[in-house]
């Protein structure tokens, strides 16, 4: 009898301890990571990238026998197009993420998102400036590769402060960037896969897991 009572209280305690552990894990996650990144905005960014790539491929890239030069109009337009895609992706990402954060009752601007943004932007801006310097001295052969690698490192760095598996997207982008460097001449296609395909795949994973109505 005594042993029965003891066992049942022990069982109850054990259940409480399991709850304690899951509460600890939950609070550690919620207090240090921003979990409302929008998957839909990833899908949209991928679609913008592919649309931009199609426009560039048919209208801006040099025809057979022509060369792309840094001071040509087509080159400038390509840069404008790239910046446009980036801006559109950022605005979409911001709006959809704010919406998701509101729904999840998560703050959009606090210590965690500040850390997230800082850790994301340092590698990204470094890469951006580096690429611009290289372009200015006519070294544009590695642009796609550098974009993929620096973007991948930015994601990897930021993944500590958000949904953990952003890390894998980052690693995939880095890997793609390295392959791109090893296979000169295919930069455009690697860019399309990295910024279009991977965004759509990864965005869909989050979307179908968390956001589907």
């Amino acid at each position, binding site marked *: 009898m005594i042993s029965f009572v003891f066992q049942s209280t022990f069982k109850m*305690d*054990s259940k409480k*301890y399991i709850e304690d*552990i899951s509460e*600890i894990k939950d609070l*550690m996650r919620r*207090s240090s990571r921003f979990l409302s990144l929008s998957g839909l905005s990833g899908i949209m960014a991928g679609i913008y990238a592919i649309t931009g790539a199609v426009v560039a491929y048919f209208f801006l890239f040099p025809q057979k026998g022509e060369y792309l030069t840094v001071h040509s109009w087509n080159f400038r337009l390509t840069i404008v197009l790239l910046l446009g895609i980036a801006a559109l992706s950022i605005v979409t990402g911001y709006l959809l993420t704010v919406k998701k954060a509101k729904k999840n009752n998560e703050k959009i601007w*606090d210590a965690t998102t500040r850390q997230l943004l800082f850790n994301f932007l340092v590698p990204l801006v470094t890469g951006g400036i580096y690429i611009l310097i290289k372009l200015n001295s006519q070294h544009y052969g590695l642009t796609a590769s550098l974009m993929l690698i620096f973007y991948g490192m930015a994601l990897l760095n930021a993944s500590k402060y958000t949904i953990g598996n952003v890390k894998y997207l980052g690693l995939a982008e880095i890997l793609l960037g390295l392959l791109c460097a090893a296979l000169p001449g295919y930069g455009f296609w690697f860019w399309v896969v990295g910024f279009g395909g991977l965004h759509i795949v990864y965005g869909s994973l989050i979307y179908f897991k968390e956001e589907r109505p």
Partner: protein
Amino acid sequence: MGLIDNINKIFDHRIRLGIMSILMVNEFVDFNRLKELLEVTDGNLASHTKTLENAEYIKIEKSFIGRKPNTKYSATKSGRIAFKKHIEALENLISKK
């Protein structure tokens, strides 16, 4: 038994356990953020942070942001060690069942 020995009475409370969990993964956290994450009232939170402070498991830093008073909390070294021991004890208890 022996197993129960490492269970720390101070952490054997949902709110204190919560405060400590948050401070383990954040360098420092202010009062309002704790309140938000734990969904507790001011008075309730204050009394539990006091208990942890008295045990020297957390440090309190008061300052002003403009004219608003701001209270920041951080875990002390001994607090971190004690909390790790407590988690180990919990895990042992669960796995030994």
